[in-house]
């Protein structure tokens, strides 16, 4: 407000040419842009899902469709995990706010807690995430991710396969 009024005041007073006005506006945008580009806490949506990787024939038949967010990763995931099929057990989305942990809770009291989401230059995000099974913390990790890049965490064994958690910044 102060900047706008001073620029306008100067402009109206005739002490400032149009070029000076443009230069001032350009500098203002540059400062705002650099501020935005720097490390800063952000409010972003984070999506997560709980997957079940197995070689069950039955699972293959009743396979719940892989969420669209990670559809491109199913083959790579199967290859990396060594299982033939992947079933979705649950998914959720939460808004991560600065200085306030947010959680995505799945069935079986498996929970992903997210904190400290900060934006880095180049649309990268630093995020701290913890995976809990009931009240027991399984892992805490800090990761550098881009929007739309899921991070997978292979968890405990279940039935004849293994549970996998996927977490991704989506907006």
């Amino acid at each position, binding site marked *: 407000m102060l900047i706008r009024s001073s620029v306008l005041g100067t402009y109206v007073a005739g002490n400032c040419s149009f070029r000076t006005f443009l230069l001032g506006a350009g500098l203002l945008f540059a400062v705002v*842009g650099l501020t935005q*580009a720097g490390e800063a806490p952000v409010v972003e949506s984070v999506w997560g899902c*709980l997957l*079940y990787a197995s070689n069950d024939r039955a699972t293959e038949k009743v396979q719940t469709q892989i969420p669209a967010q990670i559809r*491109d*990763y199913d083959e*790579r*995931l199967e290859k*990396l*995990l060594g299982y033939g099929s992947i079933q979705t*057990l*649950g998914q959720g989305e939460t808004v991560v706010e600065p200085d306030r942990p947010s959680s995505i809770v*799945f*069935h*079986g009291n*498996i929970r992903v807690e997210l904190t400290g989401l900060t934006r880095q*230059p*180049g*649309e*990268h995000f*630093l995020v701290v995430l913890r995976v809990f*099974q009931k009240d*027991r*913390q*399984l*892992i*805490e*990790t*800090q*990761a*550098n*991710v*881009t929007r*739309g*890049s*899921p*991070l*997978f*965490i*292979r*968890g*405990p*064994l*279940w*039935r004849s396969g293994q*549970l*996998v958690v996927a977490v991704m910044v989506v907006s």
Partner: protein
Amino acid sequence: MKTFEERYTAYLDGLLSESEAAIFEQERPASVAQKVAWTKLQRVLRDNLVSVELTNTDFFNSQLLQQITNARSRSRSLVVGWLGIPWLAWGGLGAVTAGIALFITLIPHGDLSDPGSGYVAQVLKTTTIDPNVSATVESRKGITIIKLEGLEKVPADEDLTH
């Protein structure tokens, strides 16, 4: 019907007929003396007013041309910049260069033919509280997975779907 002004002007210029002039003089006796004075003034002006020959007939034109030339050279010195290219063009070029540089450095980009090329999930640190649990990070092109080992198996009868 002629107005008074028209008749008066015509009278002074001697354009009225004799009868008309006589009628006009009868109506306005003072006009006779005015016509005499006007005739005298005309004679004096004709005899004494000599047109002045200007020494520089193109004086005003030359002044105007001089001012136009000065204005052109002044504006030229303001606009033309380095290597004869106007500063405004240099400014535009600089702005475009800065825009491209910012686009390259700040906007994420990758090979569109490869769906995994834009993928970034870099694990910086992992901590497990349980000493029996270990975490290893496996990164392949387009996918990163943290593998936890040593976890207790989730009971098979536990329903994780509902």
